[in-house]
């Protein structure tokens, strides 16, 4: 009988949930899109992808070990794997290894651990990593290759690929192409109206086009997102708010001036809209905890994404938009707390008769 414990209040049962399970489910949801992209861009992409994740894991372990903390437990919940995975998906697939490494340092060491580790960070680590390398190395970060499906004739072999990721075999001028968003933007500055530069929808949806992992497989990313909704890992609030905002803005402005603005559907399927909506903006740590807060957050990300894509110097705005809204999360959380049972929004007891 001495084995029964009274050291803790109830409950004495627990849902079969854990951080590791949650993270593993998200990874599973990303898997189909990742496999497809790995095939699409071949060995260099696979090397960069694996290298980035490994770098994130190593950095996490090293940072924790340097602080004298237990790092094996931290690795076992897969949260850093997810960070690395999302980071890798947001880099150009043929970027050199050091881009991945620097991004990983920003993501794991600065964005996550400088703020106090898992759960304490204000900014989405993967997006901090991506933005840091984007502003530091704009050439490498906007150098997308056209798809080179694995085992196709033009696809670099294993050894050549090592040269691309870890050596100097990649020639920016000859091999690169712009992503759809980037192309539209450059053409626009040359005076080519959006109506001519906007690529056909079918090509976008199919994904066989230049771009980062996360930008090139919209249907699979969408499927992964729906899987997460079904598994109740995420709720619909952030993705729907973000995508609807993006779509409405695109549609309305395109209707007003088709030559200047891309349409709503293009806004949805181009770039990292789906990846951002389902996998990045929904990051637990850096998004609001209440449902109303999540709606506001999602709308904000959608709005800022559209603004940056349309008016700012960068073709893709999801990362910046998410980071800007991350900064607002504490304020949103503070102002959009749920109403307590039996109380008004201000915390006063409900009036006795007004209780419906």
């Amino acid at each position: 009988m001495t084995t029964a414990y009274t050291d803790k209040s109830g409950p004495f049962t627990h849902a079969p949930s854990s951080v590791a399970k949650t993270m593993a489910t998200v990874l599973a949801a990303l898997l189909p899109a990742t496999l497809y992209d790995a095939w699409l861009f071949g060995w260099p992409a696979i090397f960069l992808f694996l290298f980035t994740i490994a770098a994130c894991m190593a950095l996490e372990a090293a940072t924790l070990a340097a602080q004298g903390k237990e790092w094996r437990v931290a690795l076992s919940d897969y949260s850093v794997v997810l960070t690395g995975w999302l980071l890798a998906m947001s880099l150009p697939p043929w970027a050199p290894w050091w881009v991945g490494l620097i991004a990983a340092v920003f993501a794991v060491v600065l964005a996550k651990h400088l703020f106090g580790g898992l759960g304490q960070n204000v900014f989405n680590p993967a997006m901090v990593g991506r933005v840091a390398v984007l502003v530091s190395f704009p050439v490498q970060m906007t150098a997308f290759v056209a798809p080179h499906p694995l085992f196709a004739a033009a696809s670099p072999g294993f050894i050549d690929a090592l040269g691309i990721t870890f050596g100097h075999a990649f020639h920016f001028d000859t091999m690169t192409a712009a992503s759809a968003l980037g192309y539209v933007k450059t053409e626009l500055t040359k005076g080519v109206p959006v109506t001519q530069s906007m690529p056909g929808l079918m090509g976008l949806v199919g994904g066989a086009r230049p771009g980062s992992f996360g930008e090139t497989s919209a249907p699979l990313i969408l499927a992964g997102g729906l899987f997460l909704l079904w598994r109740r890992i995420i709720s619909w609030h952030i993705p729907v708010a973000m995508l609807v905002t993006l779509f409405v803005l695109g549609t309305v402005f395109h209707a007003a001036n088709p030559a200047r603005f891309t349409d709503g559907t293009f806004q949805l399927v181009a770039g990292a809209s789906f990846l951002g909506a389902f996998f990045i903006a929904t990051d637990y740590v850096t998004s609001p905890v209440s449902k109303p807060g999540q709606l506001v957050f999602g709308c904000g990300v959608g709005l800022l994404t559209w603004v940056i894509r349309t008016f700012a110097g960068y073709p893709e705005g999801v990362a910046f938009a998410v980071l800007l809204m991350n900064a607002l999360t504490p304020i949103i959380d503070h102002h959009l707390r749920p109403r307590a049972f039996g109380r008004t929004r201000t915390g006063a007891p409900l009036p006795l008769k007004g209780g419906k």
Partner: protein
Amino acid sequence: MKLFPVRGGVHPEYRKERTSELAIVALPLPSTLYLPLQQHIGAPAEPVVAEGDLVKKGQLLARGAGPVSAPTHAPTSGRIAAVTQVTAPHPSGLPQTTIVLEADGRDEWAELPAPIADPFAADSQAIRDRVAQSGIVGMGGAAFPSAVKLNLGTQNRLETLLINGAECEPYLTCDDRVMREYAAEVIDGARIMAHALGAPQVVIAIEQNKPQALAEMTRAAAGIAAVTVVGVPVQYPMGSERHLTQAITGRETPAGKLTAELGVVVHNVATARAVHHAVRFGRPLLARVVTVSGGAIGKPANVEVPLGTLVSELVAFCGGLSQPPRRVVNGGPMMGQPLPNLDVPVIKGMSGILALTAEETNEQPSRACIRCGTCVTICPCGLVPVEMAAFIRKDNLEAAAKLGVTDCFSCGSCSYVCPSHIPLVHYFNYAKGSLAAANREKRKNDQVKALVEAKAARLEKIAQAKRDAAARAKAAAPSTPEASA
């Protein structure tokens, strides 16, 4: 009947099937019973017997003391062996004054109060007195003296007596069995209570995962216009008074008020049955149905147990422990209290004894909060557990209080779902305890301050009077010689 949505909640694994199909069995009378003086909320009862007294079944052993209290009766005939300190069924494991009764095996009844022949014609005060005399308390676990709650009709105009048959806690099936096997008794008791309350309507709410109980109760209530049996959604904590009231009436009880102020009083099904026994037969509360379950129990069962039976004997009757339990719980796994050991008596509010294995409790080391927000979504009180816990961890109880931690009723839903296994409810209980103590301390200090200030004012008044008198005397004194000069 139209139902209304209730915020939040969880769907724990119910594990009721282990006992739900097992009919209630009676425990053979134990040789010794231990009856604590405090089996209820309020003041402990005062013993009216002493060591060596011979008592009969149903005889008063200790009377209720004060307005909120409840008496205790002898569950069988025998001899009072002692009035002494015995470990109470409480997590602290502290002893409590307890009457020890040695059964003589004859189980002879004392002379009981006469049945109330036509309770519906009786004065409502007579029914409340009978319920008070019979030592009936809320048997869902709260153990609040029922007669006090039956008084609510005198201050409020009541519409509905809500009989709580939700039994939303996992494992527990005692109410389910009582409703299936004694439906008519429950309904009769409920109607008597409604009469005492002056409530025209009785609603019996049963979670839909108990279809047989619903069927039995509906059959027993057929043809009684004032009684409605409704199935409510399976959603923990549907059995919470305020939430059940909201589900049935759509009304949200304001903070700091009672459901009675909305015209609704809630009683448990087993309480209704006890009222039926007290009013129709004059029998005080002597036994209750307890669900004994959990992975470490040899043969789980629903057992009708004389009050004061040692839990160890009850467990032995149920096949003993098949393995060492990780936790022994008094009540359900969500809101029940942990017990230090089995050597404590069964008391009136004990709905279940669960011996849970480590697998069932699924306790894991807590990790950092990942701000997943699930606790916020499911909190049935609309609180923000994640933020309250963060403040409590920094020992900022004031901030936690501002976020409403004192509104938390420790339903356990947030701890249950937290993927990081953070013991949120443990934090909240700690905070509520400390805040209540600080409040008492503050009230005491305020009182002392008020007394000190009053005394100072009194002294000052006396001093002032003296000074005034002296000044007057002084003013008068020089004038006198002048006048006389």
